[in-house]
């Protein structure tokens, strides 16, 4: 069995590849090899011991789907890959689009559809939530400054001004909102999302949907340590059934297929949970779920292989992850292998 995984960029804003691989390898039922697929020669996961057996450089899908597929097909001709698990937002559309072609060359995937990925987008999420009775911060899309000034009265300052893909600022008045509108739109384009600002604590859920509306597993977490980039470098599993119930409802309504992360904020005054975002892949903290008793990465592999997977009903509360950085020493030969040949093998 060979499983290829992307997102081995275990850096300050880490990709989920390494924890996904750890989960798969932790399963007693897994015997096989891991192939790392990397976009940068220095993605640490390619060099870490007991992570990937071999890793290959691949081009960015934004450079065209044909060369991207050709490279995957070439790697497959050497490695005979059974399943690819992509873990990064930016590549998901490409893998979803290519999944029929990948199936033709014997590679299975287990991914959300292009439509599912679109619905969970920042610009569509509020409508989805409204239609399905899921509480989310009110928002409007503004494609011009005029639309921003015409924002409906139910949206009161402060508001969050967000880019369609990235970036978010809190604006306390129209002047600030207009300044952030300009800043974000010049970088990320239009429209801009003007969102009700909910003050409170953030909570996260990692989950796996089997594509029929059923939730295979879900684990809720509270970040305990947040870096200046907003990344959780420590967190604890929590017992909040509401978070799990809302997550299951979303998976049911979307018939979500694959891993996902749900980001919530709990209103400090009302105690109500607001859905902020759906990330269409496992988060980098997914190994906490494995440690708490739900090996969701391995379950995702089983689903990709068409195996039946029993739902996880429980997980251990009070399990903590503490992320750390580590200087790995290796030889320049390894770097030469990956830069010259595009592949590095870990003995």
């Amino acid at each position, binding site marked *: 069995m060979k499983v290829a995984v992307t997102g081995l960029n275990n850096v300050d804003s880490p990709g989920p590849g390494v924890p996904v691989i750890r989960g798969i390898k932790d399963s007693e039922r897994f015997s096989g090899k891991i192939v790392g697929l990397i976009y940068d020669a220095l993605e640490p996961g390619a060099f870490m011991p007991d992570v990937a057996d071999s890793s290959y450089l691949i081009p960015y899908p934004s450079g065209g789907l044909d060369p991207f597929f050709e490279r995957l097909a070439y790697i497959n001709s050497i490695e005979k890959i059974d399943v690819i698990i992509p873990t990064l937002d930016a590549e998901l559309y490409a893998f979803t689009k290519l999944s029929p072609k990948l199936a033709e060359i014997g590679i299975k995937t287990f991914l959300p559809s292009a439509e599912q990925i679109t619905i969970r987008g920042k610009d569509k999420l509020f409508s989805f939530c409204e239609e399905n009775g899921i509480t989310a911060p009110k928002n409007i899309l503004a494609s011009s400054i005029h639309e921003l000034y015409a924002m409906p009265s139910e949206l009161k300052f402060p508001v969050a001004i967000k880019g369609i893909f990235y970036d978010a600022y809190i604006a306390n008045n129209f002047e600030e909102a207009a300044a952030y509108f300009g800043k974000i739109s010049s970088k990320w384009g239009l429209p801009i999302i003007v969102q009700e600002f909910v003050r409170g604590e953030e909570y996260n859920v990692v989950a796996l949907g089997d594509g029929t509306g059923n939730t295979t597993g879900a684990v809720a977490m509270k970040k*305990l340590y947040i870096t200046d980039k907003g990344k959780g470098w420590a967190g604890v599993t929590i017992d909040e059934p509401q978070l799990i119930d809302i997550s299951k409802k979303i998976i049911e309504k979307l018939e979500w297929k694959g891993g996902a992360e749900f980001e919530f904020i709990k209103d400090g005054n009302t105690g109500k949970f607001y859905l902020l975002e759906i990330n269409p892949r496992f988060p980098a903290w997914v190994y906490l779920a494995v440690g708490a008793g739900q090996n969701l990465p391995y379950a995702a592999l089983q689903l990709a292989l068409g195996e039946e997977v029993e739902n996880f009903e429980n997980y251990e*509360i*009070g399990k903590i992850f503490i992320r750390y950085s580590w200087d790995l020493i290796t030889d320049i030969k390894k770097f030469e292998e990956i830069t010259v040949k595009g592949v590095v093998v870990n003995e």
Partner: protein
Amino acid sequence: MENYKIPDNLAVSEEGFLFLPATGESFTLNEIGKIVIGLLKNGSSIEEIIERLTEEFDVDEHTAEKDVNDFLTQLKNFRLVEEI
């Protein structure tokens, strides 16, 4: 005087470490805090807690009552006690 109880889901260790499983928050208690939480856990009333503190420590009833009420205000703010 109102009485309070510790929420069922609050994990309290013997060392005075509190963990709220619903929110992931944790707290540490000092020696007196540990005694008060222990008594609340066993169902003691606020009067009984004040009485116990005045017996065990060199403190008059008025000061003990004020300190216990201050502590309870903190516990209420963090949702670590429920009114009964």
